[in-house]
């Protein structure tokens, strides 16, 4: 709960997601129920068990990055920069513009989430310096000069801070697959606690590389449905057999409510509550009861002084693994009680895959747009109900629905469980 009475709203959204361009392309795609999953093109996947991914047709130069920015940065940083550009433009704040009415740089923070950082660049460079794994003592002759940037993912927060002249607190959050929710949660806390008025908050991941695919292959977390890539991600469906790897970024502009009001900013929604808990159970396994996720949901609602029956939409983690979707269904029932039976709940991972840490912020972007626009995106590829997953998953077709309060939840390796609550700006606060 905010101890200071300072409230946080979202005033800008930028998205880099598979199968579309920008925030509006993303929204059009997920509300149309279109999928962006396909056979992997980044490398030859034929030796891998899972050969499907949701890739972004991304060209940093075409999206306005300089040749230097592309040269020195991993793909995850490049995508974050492009998403942040769109979010900041959308906010109308003039950050980094040098304009006279631009906000005080000392009051602008950056929180970027990423589960696996510059893994793609680290792998590509590794292949060169080790001669494709031939040498343990890697050869510096073949190393690029920006490997240090790749080693530590905080370079992503630095690029955003430099880009927008943000001199407030900056960090990267790396809590695996809840990174994107936690980054927005931490960003909100910076504003609530009075350490910033504006925070550029979001997440980015670009994990579609051989090492990431191989490590999820081994534990059979990813789908083996290689024959029908466009329909491989099937959250909550009885036929689901694992997640589809994705990539992308979403960045939000978080702003203190009064700061936004004073400048007459358009507000998407309020960030009313955020909480995170751990299951202290297993690095990858989930107990079916969903107790810790339910606890995070309850606490996030409590922070916003919101009753469970006000929740109209749950943007699910819905990764499409057997255990996750069951776990999450139980957690929603446990935390929302009777409301769970009538709430709309969907997983956009059915369309854009699971981009590890990034997806939490992409899902918050989708949830904020759903609240603002009164449309709930569907769960695509849903056909065969699973008795253990018996809620309303908004099958295949978007739904027009006024949403006053929405939840977005996430669950990740390490046992992290996170929940964030977004409320329509006109929702009457008790």
């Amino acid at each position, binding site marked *: 709960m905010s101890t200071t009475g300072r409230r946080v709203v979202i005033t800008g959204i930028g998205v880099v997601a598979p199968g579309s361009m920008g925030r509006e392309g993303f929204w059009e795609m997920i509300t149309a129920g279109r999928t962006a999953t396909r056979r992997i093109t980044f490398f030859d996947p034929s030796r891998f068990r899972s050969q499907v991914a949701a890739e972004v047709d991304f060209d940093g130069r075409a999206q306005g990055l300089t040749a230097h920015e592309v040269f020195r940065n991993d793909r995850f940083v490049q995508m974050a920069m492009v998403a942040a550009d769109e979010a900041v433009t959308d906010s109308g704040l003039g950050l980094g513009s040098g304009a006279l009415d631009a906000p005080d740089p000392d009051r602008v923070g950056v929180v970027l989430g990423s*589960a696996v950082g510059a893994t793609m660049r680290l792998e590509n460079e590794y292949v060169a310096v080790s001669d494709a794994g031939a040498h343990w003592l890697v050869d510096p002759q073949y190393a690029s000069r920006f490997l240090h940037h790749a080693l530590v993912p905080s370079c992503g927060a630095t690029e955003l801070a430099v880009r927008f002249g943000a001199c407030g607190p900056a960090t990267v959050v790396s809590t*695996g697959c809840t990174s994107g929710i936690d980054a927005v949660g931490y960003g909100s806390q910076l504003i609530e606690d009075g350490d910033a008025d504006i925070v550029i908050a979001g997440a980015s991941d670009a994990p579609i590389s051989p*090492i990431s695919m191989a490590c*999820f292959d081994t534990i059979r977390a990813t789908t083996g449905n290689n024959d029908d890539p466009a329909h491989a991600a099937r959250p909550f469906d009885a036929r689901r057999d694992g997640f589809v790897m994705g990539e992308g970024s979403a960045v939000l502009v978080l702003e203190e409510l009064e700061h936004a009001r004073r400048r007459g900013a358009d507000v998407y929604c309020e960030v009313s509550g955020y909480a995170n*808990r751990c299951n*202290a159970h297993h690095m990858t396994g989930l107990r079916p009861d969903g107790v810790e996720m339910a606890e995070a949901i309850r606490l996030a609602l409590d922070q916003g002084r919101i009753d469970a029956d006000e929740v109209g939409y749950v943007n699910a983690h819905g990764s499409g693994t057997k255990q996750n979707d069951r776990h999450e269904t139980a957690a929603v029932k446990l935390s929302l009680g009777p409301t769970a039976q009538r709430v709309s709940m969907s997983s956009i991972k059915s369309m854009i895959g699971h981009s590890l840490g990034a997806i939490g912020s992409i899902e918050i972007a989708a949830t904020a747009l759903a609240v603002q626009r009164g449309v709930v995106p569907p769960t695509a590829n849903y056909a065969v109900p699973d008795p253990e997953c018996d809620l309303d998953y908004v099958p295949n077709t978007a739904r027009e629905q006024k949403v006053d309060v929405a939840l977005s939840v996430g669950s990740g390796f*390490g046992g992290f469980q996170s929940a964030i609550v977004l409320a329509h700006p006109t929702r009457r606060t008790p």
Partner: protein
Amino acid sequence: MTELVVTGIGVVAPTGVGVEAHWSSLVRGEPAIRPIVGFDPAQYGVSLAGQVTDFVPADHVDPRLMVQTDRWTWMSLAAATLAAQDAGYTAPEDAYATSVFLAAGSGGNEFSQHEIQGLWAKGPKSVGAYQSIAWFYAASTGQISIRDGYKGPSGVVVSEGAGGLDSIGWARRVVRRGTPAVLVGGTEAGVTPYALLCQATSGRLSTATAPEDAYKPFDRRASGHVLGEGGAILLVEEPGAARARGVERVWGEVAGHGATHDAHHHADAAPDARQYARAIQLSLADAGITPEDVDLVLADGAGVPELDALELEALQRVFGARSRPVPVTAPSSWTGRLMAGGSALNVATALLAMRDGIVPGTAYLDDPVDAPGLDLVQHSRAQQVETVVVLARGFGGFNSSLVLRRPTEERTS
């Protein structure tokens, strides 16, 4: 109002395993920077590092857990246990009452290099089941939470060398929101071939082959720094909760924190040190103290001449008008820079200095640069320490400053 007190310290560092081993090594002035063992680093232009040579992982980590985790996580698991033991802390009945909020830097380097080598040399099937949980930056936090049954709001922050202090800043937000105990700090294990090569591309590593020439913060012959491994994990608690469980010894209070970013360049520090100074000022204001109240500064001490000069400039901006120069020491000079683990280790060192009234000197500081208004500590000395500022910077422009103070009830003034 004090929000946090430090009640437990766990150290796994080049200076020793355990808080007393580390401290006696520092007080005796025994440098822990030596020729790299484990592989031949000659081709990386680097020959020295601060490695933790007396760490026996099996003494601290269950063998079943060892095979699933990297050396970085072994050190975190060991340090977390040492911190809890030091604090007399056992998991309370309410599993949600304890959080793990660590800083990470470069992840599970050695483990990952083995797996990725297997992938490229032999194929995808050679990648083991544990790569997915051993490499990523949240591995140590998750493993501690699972091993010790802590279900509170846990997190991982990455701001390179500033991370250890930032994790304490974030722990305050966790405590404000109702969780009474948080494990903070972090460790690092990047003295491995690929990680060392990555580090070397920063251009900041010293190429010197003799320890006395390699890492000399604030010395006229400073030529870069040396890497180290290890770090520290500390238990911080809400003071009322610590009292309620009958804590006998409080190491110190976390009185203030400030964090800024230079927002200047993707690698180089801002040439005016304004944001670095502002981080220090924010932490002092947060603690409700003035520069006159500070007895000691533990500097970042990058050992790179330009970065050292900027740090001294930041310190002069804040402390330059004092009636007597503020003592400034750089204990990282004894261990090398441990990235996320280094600033956490400096917090431990600061609390030890406070306990014993001893200020450790700066290793190999033979010929200090001019630092008007500052008192660069060359050799360890006896000195009363009530209030300490610990500073850290992260590559790319992260600045962090933490104020530690002797517990209120023990303060004389």
